[in-house]
């Protein structure tokens, strides 16, 4: 275990919070750049995966916020290419998942990630309601959240014609149990529409 990274004001930095929550130490990274080289979306990211780890390692004032406010953490596809190739076996996707949740808890989620967040939130809404994904419900909720009413209007009729869309949702018998699971997990949840809510 590494020495805690102290900020100028004496607060413990994000690197230690990452390790406490995920068991992953960012200090294992020696900046070889293999993760960036293999990351399919690195070219669209504001911070490459190894740069995220570098900022966490340094822990200077403002750096934690830069990480939590980055677009990168939301772009990550969790394809796990980086962690599979990492010579130090740093589980970057695991760290990234935690950073996303921390970013939400602190209300720092990048504005450009709005659609991505809206999709994930809409997805979980439909599961909470019926226990299984209802694609029509998901897309409708997503459009209402993002005002992207015209997206995929050409795709939907094709799906319908090929018998691939169910208009009515399927509700599993244990849907009440699933709802309870959501409620119990909600203390850790980070609903983007309730920014700043502490667990």
């Amino acid at each position, binding site marked *: 275990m590494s020495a805690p990274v102290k900020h100028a004001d004496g607060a413990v930095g994000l690197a230690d919070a990452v390790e406490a929550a995920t068991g992953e130490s960012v200090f294992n990274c020696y900046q070889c750049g293999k993760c960036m080289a293999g990351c*399919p*979306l690195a070219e*669209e990211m504001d911070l490459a995966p190894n740069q995220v780890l570098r900022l966490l390692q340094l822990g200077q004032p403002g750096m934690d916020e830069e990480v939590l406010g980055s677009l990168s953490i939301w*772009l990550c*596809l*969790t*394809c*796990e*290419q980086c*962690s*599979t190739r990492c010579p130090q076996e740093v589980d970057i996707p695991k760290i990234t*998942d*935690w950073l*996303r*949740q921390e970013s*939400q808890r602190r209300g720092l989620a990048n504005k450009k990630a709005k*659609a*991505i967040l*809206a*999709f*994930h*939130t809409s*997805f*979980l809404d439909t*599961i909470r309601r019926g*226990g*299984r*994904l*209802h*694609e029509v419900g998901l*897309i409708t909720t*997503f459009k209402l959240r993002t005002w992207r009413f015209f*997206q*995929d209007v*050409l*795709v939907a009729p*094709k*799906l319908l014609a*090929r*018998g*691939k*869309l*169910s208009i009515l949702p*399927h509700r*599993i*018998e*244990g849907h009440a*149990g*699933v709802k*309870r*699971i*959501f409620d*119990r*997990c*909600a203390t*850790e*949840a*980070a609903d983007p529409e309730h920014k700043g809510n502490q667990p």
Partner: protein
Amino acid sequence: MRIGFFPGCSLEGSSREYLESIREVAAVLGIELAEIPDWNCCGATAAHTLNHRLALALPARTLALAEQAGLDEVVVPCSACYNRLAGTRHELLHDEALRQQITDIIEMNWHGATRVLNVLEWLNRVVGELPGHVSAPFGHRVACYYGCYLTRPKALAACRRIEDPTEMDDLVRAVGAEPIRWAYKVECCGAGLSVSRTESVARLSERIVSDAVERGAEAIVVACPMCHTNLDLRRDAILAAAPPGGRSRIAGIPVLYVTQVVGLAMGVSLRPLGLHRHHVPVRLSAAPPSVAPAAAGEGEE
């Protein structure tokens, strides 16, 4: 033979041809698929992105139901569901405190008795029997596309060679197809950003489709509904992302589920395999028997 089965949400909706073709192939092989009673969504990317405990609890409920039903093994055809179910099982089996926490949340017992298999693991067990069922060898050059979750993470990997897996190649070869060597077997298609960031997905998927075409594939074969959606349904977006000169060449290459390829070779007709449901029309028919004897495994090079 009887084996547990978890279809997952996509297979009941936009990827129902995957389910149809799995059922057809299982019927020919005489395998009964026992669906987990009242299964729920695995939570997918959304859950692990937004809520770690939920991402474990949702798959745990399904795994507990499988265990209650006395299923030793469950086939999970969607790679993303497979990753979530197998990953949850792995994480809970290695952390007793977490297992306790999650079983409290789902109000069910769970001991980890049910193993999770993907479609390649399942079919490769009977790969020796496949040539015996082949009546119309699939005599085409194909690019086997594995994507992310059949080879990663290492702890769960169903394929032995992480960077250049061969399990799907073995399967299609057993039914008369000729798998090509290519560079994008395990590159990500963009997966869960398909709706929220279609342009990014199109850019990644364009490279996959183009490489398959450039190396002479007549079809791309997949084992995941997300991969299929991005390579097939998103083809118009892929074409828009392609360099203008390269569009016509990549417009027509169809994307088939591995179970559709196996089913065609078994002589099942197009409709029961759901081949009419694709966005990019599947114009390949099973090749005439003269083209490729089922037993032949060698490539042409």
